[in-house]
Protein backbone atom coordinates (compact mmCIF):
# COMPACT_ATOMS: atom_id res chain seq x y z
CA UNK A 1 0.00 0.00 0.00
CA UNK A 2 1.17 3.53 -0.74
CA UNK A 3 0.03 6.88 0.57
CA UNK A 4 1.17 10.21 -0.81
CA UNK A 5 0.09 13.77 -0.35
CA UNK A 6 -0.57 15.09 -3.85
CA UNK A 7 -1.31 18.63 -2.70
CA UNK A 8 -2.17 20.25 0.64
CA UNK A 9 -5.32 18.56 1.96
CA UNK A 10 -5.36 15.84 -0.74
CA UNK A 11 -4.05 12.29 -0.58
CA UNK A 12 -3.61 9.48 -3.04
CA UNK A 13 -3.73 5.91 -1.76
CA UNK A 14 -2.55 2.99 -3.87
CA UNK A 15 -3.36 -0.70 -3.36
CA UNK A 16 -1.97 -3.77 -5.12
CA UNK A 17 -4.51 -6.37 -6.23
CA UNK A 18 -4.38 -8.52 -3.05
CA UNK A 19 -4.45 -5.36 -0.90
CA UNK A 20 -7.48 -4.10 -2.82
CA UNK A 21 -9.26 -7.41 -2.29
CA UNK A 22 -8.43 -7.29 1.40
CA UNK A 23 -9.57 -3.68 1.85
CA UNK A 24 -12.80 -4.23 -0.10
CA UNK A 25 -13.62 -7.29 1.98
CA UNK A 26 -12.96 -5.30 5.16
CA UNK A 27 -15.18 -2.46 3.94
CA UNK A 28 -17.97 -4.91 3.04
CA UNK A 29 -17.88 -6.42 6.53
CA UNK A 30 -17.79 -2.99 8.09
CA UNK A 31 -20.79 -1.95 6.00
CA UNK A 32 -22.74 -4.87 7.46
CA UNK A 33 -21.74 -3.87 10.98
CA UNK A 34 -22.74 -0.25 10.39
CA UNK A 35 -26.19 -1.53 9.35
CA UNK A 36 -26.64 -4.08 12.15
CA UNK A 37 -28.73 -3.19 15.17
CA UNK A 38 -26.38 -2.74 18.16
CA UNK A 39 -29.23 -3.90 20.40
CA UNK A 40 -28.82 -7.39 18.96
CA UNK A 41 -25.03 -7.49 19.34
CA UNK A 42 -23.01 -9.07 22.17
CA UNK A 43 -22.56 -6.63 25.12
CA UNK A 44 -18.96 -5.62 24.34
CA UNK A 45 -19.72 -4.80 20.70
CA UNK A 46 -22.94 -3.05 21.65
CA UNK A 47 -21.01 -0.90 24.13
CA UNK A 48 -18.50 -0.01 21.40
CA UNK A 49 -21.08 1.01 18.79
CA UNK A 50 -23.34 2.88 21.22
CA UNK A 51 -20.54 4.32 23.32
CA UNK A 52 -20.26 4.70 27.08
CA UNK A 53 -20.13 8.25 28.38
CA UNK A 54 -19.22 7.59 32.02
CA UNK A 55 -17.16 4.92 33.75
CA UNK A 56 -18.70 5.64 37.17
CA UNK A 57 -20.41 2.59 38.63
CA UNK A 58 -23.93 2.73 39.96
CA UNK A 59 -27.12 4.41 38.85
CA UNK A 60 -26.32 7.35 36.52
CA UNK A 61 -27.76 10.79 37.23
CA UNK A 62 -30.39 12.29 34.91
CA UNK A 63 -27.65 14.51 33.43
CA UNK A 64 -25.40 11.54 32.65
CA UNK A 65 -28.35 9.63 31.16
CA UNK A 66 -29.01 12.59 28.88
CA UNK A 67 -25.33 12.68 27.85
CA UNK A 68 -25.44 8.94 27.23
CA UNK A 69 -28.49 9.27 24.96
CA UNK A 70 -26.78 12.08 23.01
CA UNK A 71 -23.68 9.92 22.54
CA UNK A 72 -25.71 6.91 21.33
CA UNK A 73 -27.57 9.17 18.89
CA UNK A 74 -24.35 10.70 17.57
CA UNK A 75 -22.82 7.24 17.11
CA UNK A 76 -25.86 6.06 15.15
CA UNK A 77 -25.48 9.06 12.83
CA UNK A 78 -21.76 8.37 12.49
CA UNK A 79 -22.48 4.78 11.40
CA UNK A 80 -24.87 6.03 8.69
CA UNK A 81 -22.31 8.56 7.46
CA UNK A 82 -19.58 5.94 7.33
CA UNK A 83 -21.86 3.51 5.53
CA UNK A 84 -22.48 6.17 2.87
CA UNK A 85 -18.70 6.67 2.50
CA UNK A 86 -18.17 2.93 2.00
CA UNK A 87 -20.86 2.86 -0.69
CA UNK A 88 -19.11 5.76 -2.45
CA UNK A 89 -15.73 4.02 -2.39
CA UNK A 90 -17.26 0.77 -3.61
CA UNK A 91 -18.87 2.68 -6.49
CA UNK A 92 -15.54 4.36 -7.28
CA UNK A 93 -13.89 0.96 -7.40
CA UNK A 94 -16.59 -0.38 -9.77
CA UNK A 95 -16.05 2.60 -12.07
CA UNK A 96 -12.23 2.58 -11.89
CA UNK A 97 -10.59 1.94 -15.25
CA UNK A 98 -7.38 0.76 -13.64
CA UNK A 99 -7.58 -1.56 -10.64
CA UNK A 100 -4.06 -2.99 -10.51
CA UNK A 101 -2.95 -1.03 -8.64
CA UNK A 102 -6.15 0.65 -7.53
CA UNK A 103 -5.74 4.32 -6.68
CA UNK A 104 -8.15 6.40 -4.70
CA UNK A 105 -7.87 10.12 -4.01
CA UNK A 106 -9.14 11.47 -0.70
CA UNK A 107 -9.26 14.77 1.13
CA UNK A 108 -7.59 14.86 4.55
CA UNK A 109 -11.03 14.62 6.21
CA UNK A 110 -11.95 11.56 4.11
CA UNK A 111 -8.55 10.00 4.77
CA UNK A 112 -9.04 10.51 8.53
CA UNK A 113 -12.45 8.81 8.24
CA UNK A 114 -10.90 5.95 6.26
CA UNK A 115 -8.24 5.48 8.95
CA UNK A 116 -10.86 5.60 11.72
CA UNK A 117 -13.02 3.10 9.84
CA UNK A 118 -10.20 0.61 9.42
CA UNK A 119 -9.65 1.03 13.14
CA UNK A 120 -13.38 0.39 13.73
CA UNK A 121 -12.89 -2.98 12.07
CA UNK A 122 -9.84 -3.73 14.25
CA UNK A 123 -11.74 -2.81 17.41
CA UNK A 124 -14.86 -4.75 16.42
CA UNK A 125 -12.83 -7.88 15.68
CA UNK A 126 -11.01 -7.65 19.00
CA UNK A 127 -14.21 -7.12 20.97
CA UNK A 128 -16.06 -9.88 19.16
CA UNK A 129 -13.35 -12.41 20.02
CA UNK A 130 -12.26 -10.91 23.36
CA UNK A 131 -8.73 -10.43 22.09
CA UNK A 132 -6.32 -9.38 24.82
CA UNK A 133 -2.98 -7.58 24.94
CA UNK A 134 -1.28 -10.98 25.38
CA UNK A 135 -2.98 -12.28 22.21
CA UNK A 136 -1.74 -9.24 20.30
CA UNK A 137 1.82 -9.84 21.45
CA UNK A 138 1.78 -13.62 21.03
CA UNK A 139 3.40 -15.52 18.18
CA UNK A 140 0.58 -16.16 15.70
CA UNK A 141 1.69 -19.76 15.20
CA UNK A 142 1.09 -20.40 18.91
CA UNK A 143 -2.58 -19.41 18.73
CA UNK A 144 -4.50 -22.67 18.33
CA UNK A 145 -7.87 -21.36 17.17
CA UNK A 146 -8.00 -20.66 13.40
CA UNK A 147 -10.68 -17.96 13.65
CA UNK A 148 -8.80 -16.16 16.39
CA UNK A 149 -5.53 -16.37 14.47
CA UNK A 150 -7.18 -14.98 11.32
CA UNK A 151 -8.72 -12.12 13.32
CA UNK A 152 -5.38 -11.16 14.87
CA UNK A 153 -3.74 -11.28 11.45
CA UNK A 154 -6.46 -8.99 10.05
CA UNK A 155 -6.03 -6.60 12.99
CA UNK A 156 -2.27 -6.54 12.31
CA UNK A 157 -2.60 -5.96 8.56
CA UNK A 158 -5.12 -3.16 9.05
CA UNK A 159 -2.79 -1.69 11.67
CA UNK A 160 -0.01 -1.73 9.06
CA UNK A 161 -2.25 0.13 6.57
CA UNK A 162 -3.06 2.72 9.23
CA UNK A 163 0.62 3.27 9.99
CA UNK A 164 1.42 3.65 6.26
CA UNK A 165 -1.21 6.39 6.05
CA UNK A 166 0.00 8.13 9.21
CA UNK A 167 3.54 8.20 7.91
CA UNK A 168 6.66 7.92 10.02
CA UNK A 169 6.01 9.07 13.56
CA UNK A 170 8.16 8.75 16.60
CA UNK A 171 6.64 8.78 20.02
CA UNK A 172 8.76 10.29 22.72
CA UNK A 173 8.64 11.13 26.39
CA UNK A 174 8.30 7.66 27.92
Amino acid at each position, binding site marked *: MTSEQIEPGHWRLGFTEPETEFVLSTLARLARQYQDDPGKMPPALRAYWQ*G*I*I*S*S*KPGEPSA*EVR*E*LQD*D*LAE*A*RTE*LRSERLALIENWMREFELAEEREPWHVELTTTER*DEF*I*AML*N*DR*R*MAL*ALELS*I*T*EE*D*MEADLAQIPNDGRRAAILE*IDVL*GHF*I*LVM*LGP*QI*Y*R*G*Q
Partner: protein
Amino acid sequence: MSQVASMRGAKRLTPIRRVINAEAGSVPLPFALDPLPFRAAEPPGTQTLPQIDVEEKLKTAFTRGWSVIVWNDPVNLMDYVVYVFKTVLKMNEKDASKHMWEVHQKGKSMVARETREKSELLVHRLRSFGLNATMEQEPA
Protein backbone atom coordinates in the same frame (compact mmCIF):
# COMPACT_ATOMS: atom_id res chain seq x y z
CA MET B 1 -32.34 18.03 22.83
CA SER B 2 -35.90 18.54 23.91
CA GLN B 3 -34.71 19.45 27.40
CA VAL B 4 -32.40 22.09 25.95
CA ALA B 5 -35.37 23.66 24.12
CA SER B 6 -37.46 23.86 27.27
CA MET B 7 -34.49 25.26 29.19
CA ARG B 8 -34.21 28.07 26.64
CA GLY B 9 -37.93 28.87 26.93
CA ALA B 10 -37.71 29.03 30.69
CA LYS B 11 -34.60 31.20 30.54
CA ARG B 12 -36.39 33.82 28.48
CA LEU B 13 -39.04 34.14 31.20
CA THR B 14 -36.58 34.49 34.05
CA PRO B 15 -35.38 38.10 33.49
CA ILE B 16 -38.96 39.38 33.22
CA ARG B 17 -39.85 37.83 36.56
CA ARG B 18 -36.67 39.22 38.07
CA VAL B 19 -37.55 42.78 36.96
CA ILE B 20 -41.04 42.50 38.42
CA ASN B 21 -39.78 41.05 41.67
CA ALA B 22 -37.11 43.76 41.95
CA GLU B 23 -39.69 46.48 41.39
CA ALA B 24 -41.99 44.90 43.91
CA GLY B 25 -39.17 44.82 46.42
CA SER B 26 -38.00 48.43 46.03
CA VAL B 27 -41.21 50.43 45.50
CA PRO B 28 -44.45 49.66 47.32
CA LEU B 29 -47.01 48.91 44.64
CA PRO B 30 -50.70 49.66 45.05
CA PHE B 31 -51.57 46.25 43.66
CA ALA B 32 -50.44 42.70 44.10
CA LEU B 33 -48.36 41.07 41.35
CA ASP B 34 -49.73 37.75 40.32
CA PRO B 35 -47.49 35.37 38.35
CA LEU B 36 -50.54 33.57 36.99
CA PRO B 37 -50.77 35.51 33.69
CA PHE B 38 -47.38 34.07 32.69
CA ARG B 39 -48.61 30.58 33.37
CA ALA B 40 -51.84 31.21 31.48
CA ALA B 41 -49.86 32.25 28.40
CA GLU B 42 -48.10 28.89 28.20
CA PRO B 43 -49.54 26.42 25.70
CA PRO B 44 -51.44 23.54 27.26
CA GLY B 45 -49.17 20.67 28.26
CA THR B 46 -46.05 22.84 28.60
CA GLN B 47 -44.11 22.27 31.78
CA THR B 48 -42.16 25.17 33.26
CA LEU B 49 -38.93 24.03 34.84
CA PRO B 50 -38.23 25.45 38.26
CA GLN B 51 -35.95 28.49 37.99
CA ILE B 52 -33.33 26.98 40.28
CA ASP B 53 -33.19 23.83 38.18
CA VAL B 54 -32.59 25.81 34.99
CA GLU B 55 -29.88 27.97 36.53
CA GLU B 56 -28.22 24.93 38.02
CA LYS B 57 -28.27 23.18 34.63
CA LEU B 58 -26.79 26.20 32.87
CA LYS B 59 -24.14 26.53 35.56
CA THR B 60 -23.06 22.89 35.30
CA ALA B 61 -23.14 23.02 31.50
CA PHE B 62 -20.75 25.93 31.27
CA THR B 63 -18.52 25.32 34.26
CA ARG B 64 -15.14 23.94 33.38
CA GLY B 65 -15.49 21.02 35.75
CA TRP B 66 -15.61 17.98 33.51
CA SER B 67 -12.68 15.66 32.90
CA VAL B 68 -12.22 13.71 29.68
CA ILE B 69 -10.49 10.39 30.32
CA VAL B 70 -9.02 7.99 27.78
CA TRP B 71 -8.72 4.35 28.84
CA ASN B 72 -6.26 1.69 27.73
CA ASP B 73 -7.26 -1.08 25.35
CA PRO B 74 -5.31 -3.95 23.80
CA VAL B 75 -5.71 -2.99 20.13
CA ASN B 76 -5.17 0.71 19.43
CA LEU B 77 -1.65 1.37 18.19
CA MET B 78 0.60 3.78 20.07
CA ASP B 79 1.29 5.91 16.99
CA TYR B 80 -2.40 5.97 16.21
CA VAL B 81 -3.28 7.21 19.70
CA VAL B 82 -0.68 9.98 19.40
CA TYR B 83 -2.16 10.93 16.03
CA VAL B 84 -5.70 11.03 17.46
CA PHE B 85 -4.63 13.18 20.43
CA LYS B 86 -2.93 15.60 18.03
CA THR B 87 -5.91 15.67 15.66
CA VAL B 88 -8.80 15.84 18.14
CA LEU B 89 -7.24 17.51 21.18
CA LYS B 90 -4.81 19.70 19.21
CA MET B 91 -1.95 18.52 21.42
CA ASN B 92 1.64 18.95 20.34
CA GLU B 93 3.75 15.83 19.72
CA LYS B 94 5.31 15.92 23.20
CA ASP B 95 2.02 16.18 25.12
CA ALA B 96 0.29 13.66 22.89
CA SER B 97 3.12 11.16 23.49
CA LYS B 98 3.09 11.85 27.24
CA HIS B 99 -0.65 11.13 27.50
CA MET B 100 -0.37 8.09 25.25
CA TRP B 101 2.28 6.61 27.54
CA GLU B 102 0.16 7.41 30.58
CA VAL B 103 -2.77 5.51 29.04
CA HIS B 104 -0.49 2.61 28.16
CA GLN B 105 1.25 2.35 31.51
CA LYS B 106 -1.34 3.52 34.02
CA GLY B 107 -4.45 2.34 32.22
CA LYS B 108 -5.93 5.80 31.75
CA SER B 109 -5.11 9.45 31.27
CA MET B 110 -7.08 12.64 31.83
CA VAL B 111 -6.61 14.39 28.51
CA ALA B 112 -8.81 17.47 28.97
CA ARG B 113 -10.69 19.47 31.59
CA GLU B 114 -13.50 21.38 29.99
CA THR B 115 -17.12 22.51 30.18
CA ARG B 116 -19.78 19.84 29.87
CA GLU B 117 -20.55 20.81 26.28
CA LYS B 118 -16.93 20.78 25.15
CA SER B 119 -16.16 17.55 27.02
CA GLU B 120 -19.14 15.89 25.39
CA LEU B 121 -17.90 16.93 21.95
CA LEU B 122 -14.38 15.65 22.71
CA VAL B 123 -15.69 12.28 23.92
CA HIS B 124 -17.74 11.94 20.72
CA ARG B 125 -14.71 12.78 18.56
CA LEU B 126 -12.30 10.51 20.45
CA ARG B 127 -14.82 7.67 20.25
CA SER B 128 -15.30 8.27 16.52
CA PHE B 129 -11.62 7.33 16.20
CA GLY B 130 -12.20 4.19 18.29
CA LEU B 131 -10.62 5.39 21.53
CA ASN B 132 -12.31 4.44 24.78
CA ALA B 133 -13.08 7.90 26.17
CA THR B 134 -15.42 8.89 29.01
CA MET B 135 -16.22 12.09 30.87
CA GLU B 136 -16.66 12.61 34.59
CA GLN B 137 -17.80 15.60 36.57
CA GLU B 138 -15.25 16.72 39.10
CA PRO B 139 -16.41 16.87 42.71
CA ALA B 140 -17.71 20.35 43.66
